[in-house]
């Protein structure tokens, strides 16, 4: 029997059936090929029309194509109908159909501005294998950024490893982390490998799973707050990326910072691809002038 994959998060696609894209002036797409997940977003005249979020495979061009094909599914639209396509993420230069590649830092700022509104000034992107703290202005232009990609602590991949170690579905981790009598001290907050070893030791010592989960979420939150503190947190504050969906980490970050993060009107994991599609719209307009 196949082993249960506790790390596996929901892959899905969506499109807005109320939008008729035929004859629209600007159809743009963004594809974010990250180290763990890939997303494609399609905008029709600047409005969110379709997206897909899926796992990145071993081949970046194929992952980009898969995400794009899935976003296009059941829309009647083909790649040729899209006027401008932008690639982003760590695999951005390997998006075969992209007209331009833009860094994920700039795309998350722009996507965050669209998703949370133009009052957002600090965006924390908790990605698959890195964490970025970004300041942006009211147009979603980056004014300051800091990236941690040296260590997997505080990243989606770190959380996947942890879900498998504890045999807990990744989507349940946030809720379970609050089912403890008292908030435990964080496990080692500097390294996901040490954190894993420490968590195993705590389980052997008889700690209930939920308490270990709470300690790990606490460690992750503390780790990224340290990163954020280096550039400072200006209000409004928002979290993008897959971990933005994990309330166990998000609420602990909010508690440590003393700031409530804006709530997303959409999937936080698609912010990078959304920003790329918005860049696509601006670049399309520029090219037509």
């Amino acid at each position, binding site marked *: 029997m196949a082993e249960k994959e506790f790390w596996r998060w929901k892959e899905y696609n969506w499109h807005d059936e109320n939008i008729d894209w035929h004859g629209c002036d600007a159809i743009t797409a963004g594809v974010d090929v990250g180290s763990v997940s890939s997303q494609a977003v399609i905008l029709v005249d600047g409005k969110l029309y379709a997206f897909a979020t899926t796992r990145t495979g071993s081949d970046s061009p194929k992952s980009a194509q898969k995400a794009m094909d899935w976003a296009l599914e059941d829309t009647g639209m083909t790649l040729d109908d899209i006027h401008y396509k932008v690639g982003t993420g760590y695999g951005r230069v390997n998006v075969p159909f992209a007209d331009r590649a*833009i*860094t994920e*830092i*700039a795309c998350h700022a722009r996507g965050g501005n669209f998703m949370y509104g133009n009052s957002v000034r600090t965006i924390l992107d908790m990605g698959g294998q890195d964490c970025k703290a970004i*300041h942006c202005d009211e147009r979603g*232009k*980056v*004014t*300051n*950024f*800091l*990236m*941690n*990609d*040296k*260590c997997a602590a505080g990243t989606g991949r770190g959380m996947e490893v942890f879900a498998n170690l504890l045999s807990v579905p990744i989507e349940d981790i946030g809720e379970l982390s609050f089912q403890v009598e008292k908030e435990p001290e964080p496990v080692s907050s*500097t390294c996901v490998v040490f954190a894993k070893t420490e968590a195993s030791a705590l389980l052997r010592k008889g700690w209930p799973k939920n308490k270990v989960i709470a300690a790990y979420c606490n460690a992750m939150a503390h780790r990224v707050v*340290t*990163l954020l503190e*280096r*550039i400072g947190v200006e209000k409004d504050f928002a979290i993008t990326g897959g971990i933005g969906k994990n309330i166990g980490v998000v609420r602990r970050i909010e508690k440590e910072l003393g700031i409530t993060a804006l709530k997303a009107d959409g999937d936080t994991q698609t912010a990078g691809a959304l920003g790329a599609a918005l*860049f696509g719209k601006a670049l399309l307009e520029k090219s037509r002038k």
Partner: protein
Amino acid sequence: MKANYGYMDGSGEYYITIDTDHCNNCSHHGCITGCPKGMFQVITDDYDDEVAEIKEEFRKKIKYDCADCKPTTDRPPLPCQAACTPGAITHSW
């Protein structure tokens, strides 16, 4: 834009910050030749501005690559900062 390159680990913080607003009006790009390790390059960024950045291959080992310029006993002027007359570069030490 302030671009921070580097990392923190158990032993400290190792960041080089470039205030790229200065780079647009910089004609000499002194950072490129000023750094003995060749850590800087000038690129066109996402907003189509010409800016300096730290090359990818140095970003995770700044502690070691900058060590020769940073004696433990003193804080001498760093070659990159001396070469950048607009004053765009700061180090976290």
